[in-house]
């Protein structure tokens, strides 16, 4: 499959995530859209790793492994980020009884 298709698929997923972040006011949905953008980038990285493997697979047996390790580390960091972010949202909800980000634009209230 040509790499163009993967680029356009990832761009489409990323832009849906951007539109979701800008459109929705629910903090959890915004957070989910950020996860969607992260996964779009991960998909593109895996596609590029296979592209590198295709380009110089015979010359270098290690080609493309670095990108997949990088995706693995992105997933690791995303897992830590999600746990901290959801804890912040829960604390926010406990203090204000709302997770509408329009109510939370003053930080001290």
């Amino acid at each position, binding site marked *: 499959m040509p790499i163009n298709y993967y680029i356009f698929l990832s761009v489409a997923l990323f832009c849906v995530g951007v539109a979701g972040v800008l459109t929705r*006011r629910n903090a*959890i949905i915004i957070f989910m859209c950020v996860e969607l953008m992260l996964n779009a980038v991960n998909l593109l990285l*895996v596609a590029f790793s296979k*592209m590198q493997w295709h380009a110089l697979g015979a010359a270098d047996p290690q080609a493309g492994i670095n990108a997949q390790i990088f995706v693995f580390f992105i997933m690791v960091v995303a897992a830590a980020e999600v746990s901290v972010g959801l804890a912040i949202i829960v604390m926010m909800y406990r203090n204000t009884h709302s997770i509408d980000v329009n109510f939370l634009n003053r930080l001290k209230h």
Partner: protein
Amino acid sequence: MNITQVLFWFLSILAILGAILVVISKNPVHSVLWLIVVFVAISGHYILLDAQFLAIVNLIVYAGAIMVLFLFVVMLMNLNTDSEPQKNRWLKIAGVMTGGALLLVLVAALKRADLKNQLAEMNNGDIGLIHNLGMSLFHDYVIPFEISSVLFLSAMVGVVVIGKKD
């Protein structure tokens, strides 16, 4: 059009449709469930690209653990009903237009790129197997791997400190 291409198009349409439904669902629980569909579709893409280890990790970590965490938080807050009282229609239109403009700019910039003979190899290659990735991970990337454990420890401490009721 062979079976790989059929699967590619099916998974792509499933992913984009799921992503749009994540954004437009009124009910946050439905959004979480559609996001699980998107992650399963992306895992299918990983399997098509012969990144089996990443596909399984994506399913376990994202569709399994992270989405269950989201679902717990949504249900803990009792957000099952539509919880966005403030509706500013112009803000929504502006957000959608901004996303569409970004899509337009990126597609227009990447359309002319000369990538016609660059293939993402499918159904071939073994770099995605756990043996090769593990050899690389524990030889070349052992320091970042250990540092990520410190990151997890600090994240855990941070979550406990933030979530503690005081």
